[in-house]
């Protein structure tokens, strides 16, 4: 081991440690930002160390550097500009795009390693296996994440897309990808085999995500995030680079944990989401069906304002409808007004409110809601028993009491105990079903009032009416 290799090894170790410490600090809101900085410092160290070793030992041609530099400029500009300008509501799809490019980069690294070996020493099995796995996983996440981003953005229909023979096509494509991969390992000098493997994997990524419903897309994004981590780790095996192995494995583990937690909070199993997409298409989410109006008590903005102004404790339950109509600013203004008036206002946030776990917290934070006002599921459920008014905005399944009974699509799902509040107001555009496709008894409860409105318009009306009551 040369002195240079030793120093680089130490720097990689330092970088890896900073990744771990950074992730660790991201556990609490007060330290999370510092955690991200520390992780970024680790990244700078890893990249600079790699540049140094490449300059000293590599550089077969100046064209390699020129191509790299051009790529860096293009990629860095694209990434930084999109990251600076994206709207917070569009965050899930941008994360998905950044995940996609990571997978693509990992596959490109494996390809380059393979191209290099064709002109020089053929790959050993211990190198060709990671190359094959890297190309397979990297290409699937590249195309799959782009499709998922398209679904979240609305460019591609969010409803599951299926067609006759899709299942057979899936099986065929997987067989082609695997067969080509095995052949690459047996004949590690044939570039076309690797190209065929990559093409089949790209097609499979598309076919895998197309049939998945928009509501499940975040779980898939998270799963593909884990995949990208593994692809990067495989790239590390292929070029014998420990920074890639460690960074990739950390993210592989992170993505897996997140995926499982997300699926659990949505009361879905990862297997059912992925396989459900493959075969059975979709059954429940014919969301055009409406709940019966019987027993519904309709209220208007003035009633709601009166209730809120004379309450002592109010819990706000924001749901997807709030994010969809971008009403977080009106909501924050309303709660600010009530707090100034002496009302105790907190937010009860379900883990999957918004489009991604934790997305609602980001949206509220953007509207200047301090994070100590945001209660997580357990804290919120303890608070509902003592709450005068629960204001539900565009949320449905996450507060459906039927989850406590057996034998329906939401059975067993962790819910917010909104029905424990003394009074409930629901802002909702119509009586349409949520994703689970079942009625919500909360809406017909005697203590519930339904305010039919778009979240933004409805909150605006309530805000105006509330100002009347709390002024002076």
């Amino acid at each position, binding site marked *: 081991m040369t002195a240079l290799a030793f120093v680089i090894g130490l720097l990689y170790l330092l970088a890896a440690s900073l990744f771990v410490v950074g*992730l660790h600090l*991201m*556990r609490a809101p*007060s330290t*999370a*930002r510092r955690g*991200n900085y520390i992780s970024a410092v680790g*990244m700078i160290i890893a*990249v600079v*160390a*790699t540049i140094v070793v490449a300059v000293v030992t*590599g550089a077969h041609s100046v064209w390699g*550097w020129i*191509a*790299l*530099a*051009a*790529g860096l400029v*293009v*990629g860095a500009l*694209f*990434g*930084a500009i999109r990251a*600076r300008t994206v709207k917070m509501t569009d*965050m*899930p799809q*941008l*994360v998905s795009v*950044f995940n996609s*490019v*990571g997978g693509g*980069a990992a596959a*490109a*690294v494996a390809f*380059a*390693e393979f*191209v*290099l070996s064709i002109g020089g020493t053929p790959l050993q099995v*211990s190198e060709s296996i990671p190359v094959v796995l890297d190309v397979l996983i990297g290409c699937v996440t590249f195309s799959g994440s782009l499709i998922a981003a398209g679904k979240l953005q609305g460019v591609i229909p969010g409803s599951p897309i299926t067609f006759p023979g899709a299942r057979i096509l899936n099986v065929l494509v997987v067989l082609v990808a695997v067969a080509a991969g095995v052949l690459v390992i047996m004949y590690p000098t044939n570039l076309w085999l690797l190209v065929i493997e990559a093409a089949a994997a790209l097609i499979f990524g598309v076919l895998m995500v197309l049939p998945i419903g928009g509501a499940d897309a975040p779980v898939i994004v*998270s799963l593909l995030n884990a995949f*990208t981590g593994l692809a990067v780790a495989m790239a*590390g095996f292929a*070029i*014998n*680079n420990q920074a*890639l192995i*460690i960074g*990739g*494995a*950390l*993210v592989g*583990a*992170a*993505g897996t944990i997140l995926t499982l937690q997300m699926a659990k*909070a949505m009361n879905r199993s990862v297997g059912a989401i992925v396989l459900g997409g493959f075969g059975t298409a979709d059954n429940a989410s014919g969301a055009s069906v409406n709940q019966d109006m019987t027993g519904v008590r309709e209220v208007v903005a003035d009633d709601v304002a009166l209730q809120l102004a004379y309450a002592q404790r109010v819990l706000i339950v924001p749901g997807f409808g709030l994010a969809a109509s971008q009403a977080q600013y009106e909501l924050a203004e309303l709660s600010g007004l009530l707090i100034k008036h002496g009302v105790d206002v907190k937010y009860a946030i379900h*883990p999957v409110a918004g489009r991604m776990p934790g997305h609602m*917290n*980001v949206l509220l934070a953007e509207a*200047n809601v301090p994070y100590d006002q945001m209660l*997580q599921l357990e804290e919120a459920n303890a608070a509902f028993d003592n709450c005068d008014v629960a204001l539900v905005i565009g949320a449905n399944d996450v507060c459906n009491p039927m989850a406590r009974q057996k034998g329906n699509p939401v059975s067993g799902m962790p819910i917010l105990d909104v029905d424990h509040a003394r009074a409930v107001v629901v802002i909702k555009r119509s009586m349409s079903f949520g994703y689970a496709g079942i009625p919500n008894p909360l809406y017909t409860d005697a203590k519930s009032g339904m305010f039919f409105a778009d979240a933004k318009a409805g909150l605006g009306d309530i805000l105006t009416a509330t100002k009347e009551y709390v002024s002076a």
Partner: protein
Amino acid sequence: MTVQLFGNLAIFVLSLLVGFEVISKIPTTLHTPMMSGANAIHGVVLAGSIVIASLADSPAGYVLAFVAGALGAANVFGGYVVTDRMLQMFNRPKAPPAPAKSSPEDAS
């Protein structure tokens, strides 16, 4: 060769376990920024792009160096910047608007 492979495998498996341990304790409040932050970390693939660019000696190699460099750089820069943007909003400690401005630093 086998010694090197075994060393890499050990690093891989232990990193997976560390990842499970560190990440399983993150509250749902921070899941979105955390996912984005983890996303940025797999941008370390950029180091791989640099290695292959330095070894490239054919037109195909140059094209791949460009592609890997562009995609990797987008991953790293975009990932860290967007994560910071999210966390910056979380850090704004404007709880009850009055009480002094000392609280942010005593990160208990």
